[in-house]
């Protein structure tokens, strides 16, 4: 997987050089994506201006806007302007709402981040905890739990599980709200609002966690078992360390680099998953904005949302590289192969 690629890349370079190389790579990817974005939108059949200017405007208005948007400029000039706009986050105006896309995104971004961070943090924590537990006690219950959860994660499509949960806890036993990030109208008072938001967060985040923790647990458990079979664990026990110290200080600690990397490597996947989660739970976030924009053919909005998502993914990939480099001391010290 990505980890081997990282290890190969890293073994030859020192840390700083490694980081630099990864940064360049990230920028390159970003560049390719936005260029691709540009090309796709301009190469579509039909009048490309309909992608930027709402075709329902009068012809005079369209002509004016064409000039304003520089649609009559040669492609290269358009491209430069496009890049400039992206860098300054001038993402145009939504067709449906007539508001600047960047404003709409700013509104929705915190919600997405909240959902995302909560899901991700709890999935990782729960998964790792269960994995360590299962590795420490080789009893049958822990093993079945982990294997079962892992299989569950793999087999059941997230959105199906979320639909089921929504049906169950939103409709059948209506203890959770069925849509939105916050009630409309929102309750009075900061505490009440906070609680209300939490109430809305439970189903979306909870469903992600339940579906997701299995593969974490499985991976952690396998890694832990492998670590626990190493000789240095016998040394640690021989040194008279308590079982706890052996488990956490030695086994878990040496398993941490690949797990941490996994944490960051799975971020892009979670971004993708957020799109579906937001749609199902009608979460006021960037993912749902993307889907709605695409369905309504609101191209500036779709482009803007995609741009944001792409940045998020690239950044998280880069973070993964960074953190892996930090956490594995063999790379930090820029030493020879271990």
């Amino acid at each position, binding site marked *: 997987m990505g980890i081997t690629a990282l290890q190969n890349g890293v073994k030859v370079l020192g840390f700083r050089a490694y980081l630099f190389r990864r940064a360049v790579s990230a920028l390159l990817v970003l560049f390719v994506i936005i260029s691709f974005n540009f090309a796709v939108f301009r190469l579509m059949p039909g009048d490309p201006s309909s992608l930027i200017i709402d075709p329902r405007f009068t012809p005079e208005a369209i002509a004016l806007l064409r000039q304003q948007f520089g649609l009559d400029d040669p492609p290269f000039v358009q491209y430069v302007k496009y890049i400039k706009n992206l860098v300054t986050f001038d993402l145009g105006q939504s067709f449906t709402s007539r508001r600047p896309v960047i404003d709409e995104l700013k509104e929705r971004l915190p919600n997405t981040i909240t959902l995302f961070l909560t899901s991700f943090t709890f999935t990782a924590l729960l998964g790792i905890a269960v994995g360590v537990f299962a590795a420490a006690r080789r009893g049958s219950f822990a093993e079945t739990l982990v294997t079962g959860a892992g299989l569950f994660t793999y087999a059941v499509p997230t959105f199906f599980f979320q639909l089921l949960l929504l049906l169950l806890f939103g409709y059948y036993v209506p203890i959770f709200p069925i849509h939105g990030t916050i009630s409309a109208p929102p309750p009075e008072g900061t505490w009440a609002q906070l609680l209300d938001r939490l109430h809305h967060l439970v189903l979306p985040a909870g469903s992600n966690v339940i579906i997701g923790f299995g593969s974490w647990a499985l991976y952690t458990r396998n890694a832990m078992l492998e670590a626990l079979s190493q000789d240095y664990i016998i040394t640690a026990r021989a040194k008279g360390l308590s079982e706890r110290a052996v488990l956490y200080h030695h086994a878990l600690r040496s398993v941490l680099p690949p797990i941490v990397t996994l944490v960051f490597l799975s971020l892009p996947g979670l971004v993708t998953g957020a799109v579906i989660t937001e749609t199902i739970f009608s979460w006021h976030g960037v993912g749902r904005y993307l889907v709605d924009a695409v369905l309504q053919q609101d191209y500036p909005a779709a482009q803007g949302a995609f741009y944001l998502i792409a940045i*998020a993914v690239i950044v998280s990939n880069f973070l993964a590289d960074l953190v892996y480099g930090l956490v594995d001391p063999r790379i930090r010290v820029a030493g020879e192969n271990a």
Partner: protein
Amino acid sequence: MNQSITQLGTPPARRATRTRTGLLSGLVAFWAQFRRRPYGMVGLIILILYAIMALAAPWLTPYKPDEMYLADRLAAPVWARYLPRFKGAPPTLRYTIGPGQWDLTRHENASLTRATDQERGELTVVQLSPVLPGEAPATAELSFPVHYPHNPPNTFDAKITYAVEAPVDAQTTLSYSIIDPQGTEYTVWDTTVYGSSDWNTATIDSRDFQVKMKLGLSFFDDPATTVFATKGDYRLVLRVSSTAASGPVRVRLAGLQANILGLLHGLLGTDHVGSDLWTQLVYGARISLIIGILAAIAAVAIGTVIGLISGYLGGKIDEFFMRVADVFLSVPTLPILIILSAFLGKHIGNIVLLVAAFSWMTTARVVRSQTLSLKQRAFVEAARAAGAGNTYIMLTHLLPNVFPLVVANTVLMMPVAILYEAALSFLGLGDPRIPTWGRMLQNARAFGAFTELAWWWLVPPGLAITLLTLSFTLIGNAVNEVLNPRYRERT
């Protein structure tokens, strides 16, 4: 010339390069190993069941996936009648009442005969004698018993096709009523024909405002609940009467269609337009399997080609391809699929292309790394020494060796493709003409399965997806274990 190169290139005493017979014995050996893995076998069995379902679709269900109004919207499955919520719910009842099925319960100066019409089949003919002015009109009352032991339905409808042959001064009235077990008569339709009339079809739907008015109900009331309030024996009554002095009146009736759309239907109920859900499920298997297989093969084919070229030729080409792969890997897959599918249009072929375009990378990497290690081997060197060209070497020597890996990857790629298609359909970006499980889920969500608590709409397609991907995963893992004992990658 070819033969000598092959001989040179064949590594000594290893079955690495497959000849024709080698392939067959290889398959046999593979199957022997695969059989021993219980999980793989379970997966295979499930897959075979799905394949049967896909192939035998037309025999597994009498309906077509887009046939509408087979029952009421969001009807529950037939077996739901054992659940407390649906006890006594009505199934769909359809009657086509032709000659011989009507009871002539009243007749004054009227009689019934039959006729046959080329277009409209068997006709019931009501013969009404002329009456003198001032006398009571000639009347025929045709009655058809309906035993209705269920809860009230939500709608009922009827279609009456009639033609009148009468003298100019005739005034013929037809009316259609439903008489409930208590004897209350509900007239839901009537019409008066002056003189003759050509074939006419009257469609009566209980949701129509005219019906509600006729029954004296408001716009918000439900005629069906009013009419079919009790359980028992009902009668559908068609009255034909006429006043004609100068001659007889003949009213010809084609088969009268009376339907009560049930709230129970089929194995899995109906969707929002009354289409059978079991049919959609069964036909959906075809799409999912085809998409899965095609997209996976496409993705792996691309990946293999790139992996081979990249690994074997090395250098700048390798760098280039790996960079491209890096870029593709860094792109968030679902968002880009969303955007691209919106632009390419909601066509099923696009989904296959898109999924393949963004899934080839892992295969490419894996094939490349194996190619790199194979490159060093003696038989490759020998082939080159004998003057074989690059393409030849890649096709004849490297590809067969890489093949087990490719196969394993293909099988493991299929659930990915299926899930992507399901996700895209679910978000509303799929092909609306093609019944897929993702589309079923989307419809369920958009058209009220939640509010109506119609879990039978939601669970089967989702479960179908789950089991199918599970089966592929099981098979893929088993295949991987058998073919590549050392390539068991963790995560």
